[in-house]
């Protein structure tokens, strides 16, 4: 029964990783940008929620729409003012710039809030659970997070396929020069894509903040989890990302069960390495944002 319990926990945790991964994949798929500050952007909304909770006594859940609006603006302006200058330059330049950005965010948070762990209190929901049998119960919070992830990823797929803006995203992802010739304002599209990516991050970042504690230096670990979910699932596939996240979550919780809690994250890395070695294109490669000839 312990096994079933940890498997369920792993699957639910995977939804969260998929949410982190989606933002990373959008930015890579559309802008060909590897955003090393991605993990730090998942930490920012948790601190934003902390500020909003402190200032107006808001439940952290309700801070999500406000934070989303703020982070959308941050993403839009960041892309428009800074990162658009990198489009078309070497891939490594984007990595260096976002690495610098990551250092600025991490150390900025350290200066502002110190190295201690913080948490968000969402009230009673954190302890409520559905009891299935004597040894197996599913917490409402992890379940809500997982379902949110599924809804967001489905919503994103629908957005990409059925809206004009989504079509523009796909066009720019496939061939940004041709897209520009067809009259698409690529600079605007890139900025919106970054805004959307950071907006999605807010959902995952805030919920993670409610679920566990966070500190300014967790960003790199989050970046790695998001990245592993993308690679395991297969680049460019929305559902692949969800599956990648779930496999990563499962590897961590089941790995902790077998090898002990100290090896939990290592087990996730190990699964990532194995999949990279035997199936580098990921389990479900190639759909909407896949055709990235990025090298």
């Amino acid at each position: 029964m312990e096994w079933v319990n940890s498997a369920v926990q792993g699957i639910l945790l995977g939804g969260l990783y998929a949410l982190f991964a989606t933002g990373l994949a959008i930015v890579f798929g559309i802008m060909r940008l590897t955003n090393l500050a991605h993990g730090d952007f998942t930490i920012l909304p948790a601190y934003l929620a902390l500020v909003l909770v402190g200032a107006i006594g808001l439940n952290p859940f309700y801070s999500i729409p406000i934070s989303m609006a703020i982070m959308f603006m941050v993403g839009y302006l960041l892309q428009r003012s800074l990162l658009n200058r990198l489009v078309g330059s070497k891939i490594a330049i984007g990595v260096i710039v976002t690495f610098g950005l990551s250092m600025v965010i991490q150390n900025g948070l350290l200066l502002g809030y110190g190295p201690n762990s913080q948490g968000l209190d969402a009230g009673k929901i954190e302890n409520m659970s559905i009891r299935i049998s004597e040894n197996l119960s599913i917490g409402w919070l992890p379940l809500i997070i997982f379902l949110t992830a599924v809804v967001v990823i489905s919503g994103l797929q629908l957005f990409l396929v059925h809206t004009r803006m989504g079509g523009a995203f796909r066009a720019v992802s496939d061939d940004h020069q041709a897209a520009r010739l067809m009259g698409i304002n690529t600079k605007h599209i890139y900025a919106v894509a970054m805004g959307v990516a950071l907006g999605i991050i807010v959902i995952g970042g805030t919920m993670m903040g409610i679920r566990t504690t966070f500190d300014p230096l967790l960003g790199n670990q989050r970046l790695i989890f998001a990245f592993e979910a993308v690679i395991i699932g297969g680049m460019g596939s929305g559902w692949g990302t969800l599956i990648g996240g779930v496999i990563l979550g499962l590897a961590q919780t089941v790995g902790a069960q077998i090898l002990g809690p100290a090896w939990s994250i290592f087990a996730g890395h190990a699964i990532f390495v194995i999949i990279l070695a035997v199936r580098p294109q990921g389990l479900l490669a190639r759909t909407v944002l896949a055709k990235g000839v990025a090298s």
Partner: protein
Amino acid sequence: MRAAAGSVSTGETRIVVSVASRKNLFILGGGLVILVALAFFPVFGSLAWTRRLVDFFLFLALAQFWNLLLGYGGIISVGQQGYIGMGCYALWFFADVLHVPLFLAVILAGLSGAIIAVPSAALVFKLRGGYLAIGTMVLAEMYRMIVSNIEATGGGSGVTIQAATEFGNESRVSGTYWWALAAAVIAIAAVYYTMRSRTGLALKAVRDDDLAAESSGVNLWRTRMYTFVIAGAGCALVGGILAISLLRIQPASVFAINWSAYMVFISVIGGLGTIEGPIIGAVIFFVLRETTSGYGGWYFIALGVVAVIVPVWNLGGIYGFVAKRTKFFVFPLRRKVKILGDGPGQAEPATQEEVSA
């Protein structure tokens, strides 16, 4: 560093191809004098300054290897701290467990880095574009977790290098100093030698256009593997020296991502794709570290801001800026073509072979 590499006579015009100019030979002589003076530093210098210079040489060596990866090999790594950390623990293993003489174990630490780099490279080369960088970060994390989760290596609290404590303080610092100086010289020599070799030409071709290079017969995978292994060995060598200098190694500090931050900063501010760049960058970094590292977070924010600003505005770093105007390289890597002709109106020397940053 030959003064002239050859000359071709085509009818009326004579073409001379050279790598180094006379100025370069003078600088080489001056450099050797400085090197000899530096080698004697522990004899007359203070212990505190000897220690500081150890750090300086280690940073310089690290930045050279990182720059070999990116500036020449086109491989962006943010996981070299994995090799630094493994170098530290390899030194501990050889010196304390197998009782290899301490300063000999440094070489074995470097070799361990090369051995670890082979499968690591094979793995991360499967990743596309900038995802390769995150791949190197994952591997560095895995190495850190292995040593910090195993009891034999002292777990998270680390180990003390017993063999190093047996040395007197002064002789240990001097020995570390000579090794650190050697590491910096080895790094510069390795990059220079690599770039002047066939592999170097292939590397430059790959960096400028990997598709074109591959279709001209360059084995992309092998060339990049070579670079990755050299850089892995180099960073592990530095790790081995670092371990002797630190005496006590802890996973959280020797595997810290901050090492990557330093390497990025030094290379970017000095100038990517040049040997001179990291030297200038290391001096700037050293001065900055000595004067402002007390400010903690602000110091790292300043490093980050430089990493953001310099590439965005397409500044080739300090040396890139200088070289663009003077076309002078202390370490000449490019062949210069001089046309000494009686041909119509062709007398001024032209420099060929452009370098893209």
